[in-house]
């Protein structure tokens, strides 16, 4: 058997695991590992400019590909800088393995230089974590970490590695296990047959059904099955912010996103429904509005792999614990079986009436049936997304930051495929968009990758322009520059009589064009609507250049619809600054 040092075992295990990229940043306690990577690893390492960006880049890579992302950081500040990115991945159930250096074993607990209790500090935001005590344990621990990160409900796993166990002088027998079994960890593999039968019976008896699907469908690679089920039944589908792309956005059965900034027709359909099929969605408070007014007439079927997601906020009438793909397969079979018994199911007349109502909602207030925004001064943010959609033929990977621009991107870019829309929904992390775009672009070098951002968010990880120079990562930055922390300003307009407490930066914004150029990229400033489409085409024609498009948009625009809270139902919405349901 081959003899390797701890550092070499880390490098080799990552190769044996099939890792394609390591996103990281070196420092004292990981230098043995870096040396081993330098000497013998073929895995490309991306040196970011801040560890937060390493986690977001790994995360973006994962969301685009479905493969577990890998991060390598040093102890102390390296580890703490990674925390926001780990929490972001945790909230959205993204598989990730974070290797953090730790001080030498005998120094742990002594407040040694760059010591921080990484296992402790990350505990509430990881799926699991390990502090490796012996070099011999490294291969098996790494295998376990990848297994735990990617199976069941995915999530980030931290492996904290004291420096002394990676030292080059001591060598150990290396064997990377094919698989691992943990007696205490057995995620569900299949839904309960009896529950599925009951669920299909209820589903087929529905008169006003709606399918509410979420990030779990994308995580569980079940978009095609979901689409097949919805199209077999001809039931309407709405997606959460995390589920966009799980059902084709251009299909007429798609009602758009639901929730706080969801489509009128999607929220109305939920509120008026009699049966909701929730698939890999977790009834987040940004979706439900007030729980005691949530969908009063609806019976709920809830499919989720994680029992804690079921009946956490909204009680499920028929819970099904299991992976979406296998449960949907079983459901499709059940639908066929039950329809063979009674071909008249579901009730076609009721469904036709239901669709008529939905079409009415869509006609009156749908965001895609007519322009719902007023043309203001200059460029409207929605027009930028429409232009982006056109220029990329609806087929780009679109990442985003957090704020109004994120909601406009979610509403106006019609995602037809899963894994094309990449954003931080659960934690809502400004600074996520740009590094995650880097990760997606590295995974798909020939695809268009656009980061839709705001002048606030982009400045949270703008240093990564340097990384893009070093590794030639030609993403397109679409900066919807409204000169404000726009989402904050919108709330201040609506709830604080327009007192803009710290939501603007006076005249301190940098010249983004020059800044991009300083890093060796292309900068463009677009101020007039007439120039928008041409500039967008020009930017995407520059296949091998990072282009920073600084687009000045109307600063007074708000995102609508918007749920009315507190004490509102899903049907209570502001539709514009003056109009409400």
């Amino acid at each position, binding site marked *: 058997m081959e003899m390797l040092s701890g550092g070499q075992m880390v490098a080799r295990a990552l190769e044996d695991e099939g890792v394609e990229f390591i996103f990281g940043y070196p420092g004292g306690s990981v230098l043995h590992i870096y040396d081993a990577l330098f000497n013998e690893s073929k895995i490309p390492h991306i040196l970011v400019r801040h560890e937060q960006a390493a986690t977001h880049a790994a995360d973006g890579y994962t969301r685009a590909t479905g493969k577990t992302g890998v991060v390598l950081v040093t102890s102390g500040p390296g580890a703490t800088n990674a925390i926001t990115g780990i929490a972001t991945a945790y909230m959205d159930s993204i598989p990730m393995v974070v290797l953090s250096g730790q001080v030498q074993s005998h120094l742990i607990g002594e407040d040694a230089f760059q010591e921080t209790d990484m*296992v402790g500090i990350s*505990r509430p935001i990881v*799926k699991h974590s390990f502090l490796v005590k012996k070099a011999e344990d490294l291969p098996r621990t790494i295998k376990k970490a990848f297994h735990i990160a990617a199976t069941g409900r995915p999530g980030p796993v931290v492996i904290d590695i004291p420096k002394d166990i990676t030292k080059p002088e001591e060598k150990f027998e290396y064997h990377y296990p094919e698989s691992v079994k943990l007696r205490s960890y057995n995620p569900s593999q299949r839904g309960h047959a009896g529950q599925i039968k009951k669920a299909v019976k209820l589903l087929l008896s529905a008169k006003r059904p709606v399918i509410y699907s979420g990030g779990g469908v994308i995580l569980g690679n079940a978009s095609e099955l979901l689409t097949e089920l919805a199209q077999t039944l001809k039931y309407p589908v709405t997606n959460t912010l995390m589920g966009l792309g799980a059902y084709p956005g251009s299909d007429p059965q798609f009602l758009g996103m639901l929730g706080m900034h969801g489509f009128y027709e999607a929220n109305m359909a939920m509120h008026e429904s009699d049966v909701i099929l929730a698939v890999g969605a977790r009834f987040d408070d940004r979706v439900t509005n007030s729980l005691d007014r949530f969908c009063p007439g609806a019976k709920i079927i809830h499919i989720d792999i994680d029992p804690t997601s079921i009946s956490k906020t909204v009680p499920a009438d028929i819970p099904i614990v299991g992976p979406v793909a296998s449960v949907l397969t079983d459901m499709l079979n059940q639908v066929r079986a039950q329809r063979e018994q009674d071909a008249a199911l579901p009730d076609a007349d009721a469904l036709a009436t239901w669709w008529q109502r939905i079409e009415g909602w869509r006609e009156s207030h749908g965001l895609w049936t007519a322009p719902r925004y007023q043309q203001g001064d200059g460029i409207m943010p929605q027009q930028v997304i429409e232009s982006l959609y056109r220029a990329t033929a609806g087929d780009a990977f679109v990442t985003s930051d957090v704020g109004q621009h994120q909601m406009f991107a979610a509403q106006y870019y019609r995602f037809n495929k899963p894994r094309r829309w990449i954003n931080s929904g659960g934690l809502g992390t400004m600074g996520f968009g740009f590094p995650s775009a880097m990760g997606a672009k590295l995974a798909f070098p020939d695809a268009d990758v656009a980061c839709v951002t705001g002048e606030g968010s982009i400045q949270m990880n703008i240093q990564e322009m340097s990384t893009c120079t070093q590794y030639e990562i030609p993403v397109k930055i679409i900066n919807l520059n409204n000169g404000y922390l726009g989402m904050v300003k919108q709330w201040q307009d609506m709830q604080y009589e327009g007192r803009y407490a710290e939501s603007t930066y006076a005249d301190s914004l940098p010249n983004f064009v020059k800044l991009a150029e300083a890093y060796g990229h292309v900068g463009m400033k677009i101020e007039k609507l007439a120039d928008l489409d041409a500039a967008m085409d020009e930017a995407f024609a520059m296949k091998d250049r990072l282009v920073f498009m600084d687009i000045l948009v109307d600063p007074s625009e708000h995102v609508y619809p918007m749920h009315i809270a507190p004490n509102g139902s899903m049907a209570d919405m502001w539709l514009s600054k003056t109009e409400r349901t």
Partner: protein
Amino acid sequence: MRRILSILLENEPGALSRIVGLFSQRGYNIETLNVAPTDDISLSRLTMTTDGDDKEIEQITKQLNKLVDVVKVVDLTEGAHIERDLMLIKVRALGPDRAEINRCVEIFRGQVVDVGPSVYTIMLSGTAAKLDSFIEALGDTTVLEVVRSGVAGISRGERVLSL
């Protein structure tokens, strides 16, 4: 309602902190917590008493099960079970009080495990409620120190919590 949860846990470093962390992070309360390795040293057995309505207990149980180190969780209060709390209590014992204290210990089937010129240390086990009544029964006796193990529990009859 008061519940007694019994948890079988991998005897790994950090495992206990994940359980305790879960409770503080999600705002559940822990009344007592008792933990020690079992006959199989790779496993720890934990007994925890907590308070909550059915919905809350359901979430707590699910969240505990979700922890990678947790092997099994049962709510002992769902069936017939035995609970025991062990108490060591040090009291001031002078003159005529000594006989009075002894009588009380006998009634509660406790044991004086250490005797000093002016103090007794008494050991007593039973349900948490029994231990509370004992302290009450001591009346005017000065209690110097109390240490309790927290509830340890097991189900009655054939039901077994094991791998």
